[in-house]
């Protein structure tokens, strides 16, 4: 690691005031320290907000919940209220990382984690996200973990978070405190900017902005929720493709449908038209095929990412079968990677 000054923030205003071009906030540190060790990130000042009081609580917020930015992934996934009212969020978090990392990683940090594109991680390679203007080594390189949607010629990287996909499907909002002390909220999907010709800019956050909480809307009573993740090994791997689904059935038709997709875009990906194609329809193979055909792009931005097109189609259909009850009884453990919908 490059040397840095370690500073403990006394308050949010204090943390905000200490931020600058070469400063970085640290909370769980599971991604930042990893990147600092290989000198992909080299902050000269690291501001520790992990001891700020009150930010590690999950509190009622209207009919929903306000999740402090310092709530760990484990605390969030195992919270009895989350398990009962927003199970897809529990499932999504439990699908990510390892128990050790979930114990340390925070809600705010999870949202702001960096891509795991191998060229971003390799300082010997060109990467527009890490070193703007140097080019994109993924073009013509290895592309198994790259995105299908939202890419540009300058960057093909995917956002790695599972939690963010769970939040996106639930319509959660991010609460942001500006350096002025004002607070604003943004839907999780709008926190992120697409790479365009500035892949180094990943969010709409400005200097001094700090994510203070995530706000969950009221639970969607009567919905079936599921999170299905496909990856290269059975556990502790980033998603090739993941699908979060929240479906409400009314007899034999789908009354409401919300979907979000992970591993396929620089942000948790959503497509309102796909949700619309399912709403009011019977949960049958033709319905699912139509939704999948609308979602899956005709071409992939990288030849090695082309396999994700059929993979996404099949994962979406399997998830819809499960969430609509068409899949039948969910059997145990390993054979039911996303578990029983609730």
């Amino acid at each position, binding site marked *: *690691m*490059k*040397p*840095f*000054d*370690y500073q403990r923030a006394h308050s949010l205003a204090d943390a905000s005031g200490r931020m600058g071009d070469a400063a970085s906030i*640290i909370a769980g*540190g*599971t991604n930042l*320290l*990893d990147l600092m*060790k*290989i*000198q992909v990130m080299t902050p000269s000042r*690291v501001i*520790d907000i*992990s001891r700020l009081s009150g930010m590690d609580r999950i509190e009622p917020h209207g009919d929903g919940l306000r999740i402090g930015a310092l709530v760990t992934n*484990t605390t969030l*996934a*195992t919270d009895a209220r989350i*398990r009962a009212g927003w*199970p897809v969020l*529990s*499932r999504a978090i*439990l*699908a990510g*990382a*390892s*128990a*050790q*990392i979930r*114990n*340390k990683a925070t809600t705010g940090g999870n949202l702001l984690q960096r891509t795991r594109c191998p060229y971003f991680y390799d300082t010997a390679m060109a990467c527009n996200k890490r070193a703007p203007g140097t080019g994109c080594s993924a073009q013509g390189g290895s592309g198994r973990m790259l995105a299908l949607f939202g890419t540009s010629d300058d960057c093909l990287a995917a956002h790695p978070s599972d939690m963010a996909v769970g939040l996106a499907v639930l319509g959660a909002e991010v609460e942001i405190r500006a350096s002025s002390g004002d607070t604003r909220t943004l839907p999780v999907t709008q926190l992120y900017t697409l790479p365009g010709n500035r892949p180094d800019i990943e969010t709409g956050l400005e200097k001094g902005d700090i994510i203070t909480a995530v706000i969950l809307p009221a639970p969607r009573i009567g919905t079936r929720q599921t999170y299905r993740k496909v990856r290269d090994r*059975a*556990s*502790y791997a980033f998603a090739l493709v993941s699908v979060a689904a929240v479906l409400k059935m009314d007899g034999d038709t789908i009354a409401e449908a919300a979907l979000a997709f992970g591993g396929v875009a620089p942000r948790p990906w959503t497509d309102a038209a796909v949700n619309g194609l399912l709403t009011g329809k019977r949960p049958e193979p033709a319905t699912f095929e139509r939704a999948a055909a609308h979602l899956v792009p005709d071409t992939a931005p990288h030849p090695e990412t082309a396999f994700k097109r059929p993979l996404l189609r099949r994962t979406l259909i399997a998830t819809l079968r499960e969430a609509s009850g068409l899949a039948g009884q*969910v059997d*145990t*453990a*390993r054979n*039911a*990677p996303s*578990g*029983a919908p*609730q």
Partner: protein
Amino acid sequence: MGGPSGPPFSVSARRLGAGTAGVNAHAPGTDRGVPSPPLERAGQAVPVRLAAALVANDFTRPAALHRAARPRRAEEKFWNRQRVAWFGPDTVGPDTARPQLALDLSSLNARHEERFLMTKLTVNGQSHTLALDPRTTLLDALRDHLDLTGTKKGCDHGQCGACTVLVNGTRVNSCLCLAAMHDEDEITTIEGLGSPDSLNALQAAFVEKDGYQCGYCTPGQIMSATALFDELKAGHPSYVSPDLDHAEMTDAEIAERMSGNLCRCSAYPLIREAIAMAAEVKS
């Protein structure tokens, strides 16, 4: 991959025999914070000689040591580069050109010490106060400053789990923790579970079931499994739990919950058996 994350000079000082477990080798108040080099050991081997070059140059030394401490040209270049990397370009001044002294550390040590953070860690019930470079991970603090080498450094990036310890009762990758962020925290390492004469249930089960081959990942596996029991007891679900409100000790649950601990010898089936056996012993 991951460069030196501990203070570069503490290792040198310790190699010279200055550091002992639980004692900060750079305690404020000692002579410039650098322990006296035992002169008779200098010049033995290259690392020691380089170490002598690093720590000895504030001291009056016999000419022999002076020569021994003089790095070769390539080494000189290397250390100058390191100095720039560690302390910034402004620390390379005219003195670097002095032929007999490639490194004048007096000002560097002072700058280095300014960054030190006093950190209190309670490890296995024993409290220690360490002065640490901010870069020091909890893993390096345990291994290099407290001589608790039971906790292993595998990947140093949170991918393998060999460094798993308990912080205030929960398992974490100690390689992904800054020690300074754990000031006042309670740490449990493999040394805190049982002793060779009196293994705890998990340790005994790993021996009984032969849950390892080379053994390097074993301390991490055992620390991780220790926390697994507590998490199951607290009703935490996992990715493979059919129901988010009920989790049982099944083989699939153990596999999923231990996925943050890799075993390159692939002793996984026996590791899972050992954990299941210890769970039975406990209940």
